[in-house]
């Protein structure tokens, strides 16, 4: 089978510890270890350029279709059955029949190469992560493997799009769960990027926002001022937890403050989004082509675990995903019990057979996360795992493109020499 990547070329083993430290201090990669597993891989995915073209074309179409579908769903109030909490549905229903815009949208589509070609497992359309890896770590790896280039820079693309929308320098509230260093690292990285471009980033918790006719205002002990933009890295389904008087529903509608992303993104973030396609006027040909068949477990027999993957409607990072053989028997039993009790919170998706990337360190199953910023492809980062389930135990890796002969340093030869395939 023709695979979409070149023969793998790793970062030299001797160079990797230094690269890891650079990732920590230059790209704010503060979670380089999870359990016994290092989260940074020295094996980048070296995509063939024509495959990258294919992925970017698809990602842009997927983004356009998703936004169009979201608008129709919100306009028509078709919110039942996609696994959203009732408070969220109520907040979105307030927008029904109204025109609303979304000036700044970022998404990340997770592609997998399978025995049936490329497929997507999901879109991260609410709070896509991976900026540190796509814009930062990828650049560091690229320096170690001459003859390659990064696939894009989503952090820079986000800043550019923000400047285009705002018409200049802005005050940006970076809203996140402040206690969680994994989120903080993303916000700190983006804050540095924004600051370097002359913007004023402010790191805030979601309860530090106050909403009025003028838009959002940040108010806390270190900042009191209006915000031109809110970059939200706080999952939308957590917003009701802010409480009755926090005006959390303001995260759902565009205001004078640009929201990225507006919390209505939860509509396409839900894994049950495909269950509405049958009643939509919006055509979704790219979604139908690339997303495996997705069904409501309440209306089918999902117990054939050789055929179906079970996914929580609002699951993230692969957590809670049930793939037989990839999780413990105990976890599998727990998932099946919850699907039986609460099928409305789950989907069953047809299992695809991932084609791994073969390396001397063993086969790695690959997920290529392609970013779009306002519908334009903006870069990618990869995740690799020794099993088909890409979850929090997977390692992050660079997605690079070849640019001439791919070369790597050989300690044996004492020089760079060419490996892998030429373009």
């Amino acid at each position: 089978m023709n695979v979409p990547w070149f023969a793998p070329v790793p970062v030299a083993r001797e160079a990797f510890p230094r690269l890891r430290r650079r990732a920590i201090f230059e790209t704010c990669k503060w979670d380089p270890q999870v359990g016994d597993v290092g989260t940074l891989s020295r094996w980048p995915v070296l995509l063939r350029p024509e495959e990258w073209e294919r992925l970017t074309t698809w990602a842009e179409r997927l983004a356009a279709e998703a936004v169009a579908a979201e608008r129709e769903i919100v306009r028509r109030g078709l919110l039942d059955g996609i696994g959203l909490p009732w408070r969220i549905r109520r907040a979105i229903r307030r927008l029904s029949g109204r025109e609303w815009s979304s000036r700044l949208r970022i998404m990340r589509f997770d592609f997998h190469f399978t025995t049936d070609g490329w497929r997507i497992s999901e879109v991260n359309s609410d709070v896509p992560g991976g900026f540190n890896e796509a814009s930062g770590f990828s650049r560091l790896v690229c320096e170690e493997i001459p003859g390659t280039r990064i696939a894009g820079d989503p952090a820079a693309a986000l800043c550019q799009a923000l400047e285009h929308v705002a018409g200049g320098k802005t005050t940006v509230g970076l809203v996140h769960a402040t206690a969680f260093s994994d989120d903080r690292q993303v916000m700190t990285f983006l804050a540095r990027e924004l600051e370097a471009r002359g913007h004023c980033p402010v790191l805030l918790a979601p309860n530090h926002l106050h909403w009025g006719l003028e838009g959002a205002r940040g108010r806390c002990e270190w900042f009191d001022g209006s915000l031109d933009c809110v970059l939200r890295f706080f999952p939308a389904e957590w917003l009701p937890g802010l409480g009755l008087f926090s005006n959390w529903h303001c995260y759902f509608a565009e205001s004078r403050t640009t929201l990225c992303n507006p919390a209505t993104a939860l509509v396409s973030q839900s894994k049950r989004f495909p269950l509405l396609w049958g009643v939509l006027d919006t055509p979704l040909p790219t979604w139908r082509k690339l997303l495996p068949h997705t069904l409501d477990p309440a209306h089918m027999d999902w117990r054939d675990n050789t055929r179906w993957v079970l996914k929580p409607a609002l699951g993230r990072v692969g957590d809670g995903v049930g793939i037989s053989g990839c999780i413990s028997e105990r976890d599998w039993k727990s998932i099946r019990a919850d699907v039986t009790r609460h099928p409305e919170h789950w989907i069953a998706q047809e299992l695809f057979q991932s084609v791994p990337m073969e390396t001397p360190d063993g086969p790695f199953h690959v997920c290529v996360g392609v970013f779009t910023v306002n519908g334009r492809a903006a870069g990618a980062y990869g995740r690799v795992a020794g099993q088909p389930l890409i979850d929090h135990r997977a390692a992050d890796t660079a997605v690079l493109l070849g640019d001439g002969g791919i070369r790597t340093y050989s300690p044996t030869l004492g020089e760079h020499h060419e490996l892998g395939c030429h373009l």
Partner: protein
Amino acid sequence: MNSDAIYEAWAPAGSVWSAWTKPVAFADLRAVSERDVSPEAAQPPAWTPPPSAGIAVILDVPGAHGVSLGFALAKAGYQCVPLYNGVAGPVTSAAAAVLDVEPVRQALASFAPEMSRLANPPAAPPVFLLDSRRLTGTGSANPGKFDNRWVVFPQDFPSANFLFAHGIRGVLVVLPPEGALADDLTHVLRRWQESGLSIRTVPTDGTRAADVQVPKPGRFRSLLYRALVLAGFRRNSAGGFGSLVPEPPQSGGYG
């Protein structure tokens, strides 16, 4: 020393345990003037197991005390593994943080030059450093504050298998006097104990050392434990782990 060098001092490349060192406390860390190491800081406490005993130590004590105690154990042949995961507060207003992490950061910077001169073997047993105030903070968690409290998860530590493979047979948890095992830490210890590691606790003053049977915590081994922790927000702690931290003083206890 810059941040990178300070980190390297506490997480030397050759150590088996360095990979688990949390980078957060070292981010944007500036060198402080090298301070004199006090005699107390240089002496390991009487309860310190010999490095050959195959015991991993967890120091779950307040703030910078853990750093100086860790340094003392490092001089006795242990490898420190700082697990401080509380982010620093706003640069313009450090006092706005619910958990004051600056003393820990300063201590890490202060001891770094001495740490870098120790030459413990790569397989020296680990001493994990935690801040026992991580769940409660050092200040009020009022609205407007920067909530940087944090919790530990099992995946912040090596697995029991890894510990066994590197000669560790038991764990000694050092607590403040009158302290108790923190709820988040019991998730870690229970897993280790179920895998066959012995668990012992001792207060820093060395009294009442005891073998313990770690109680089974709530949501133990739940597939979604990590997600549930992160999702357990309360109105007064929207940036933090509301389900595991006390309510404001008027209600007390864990929510």
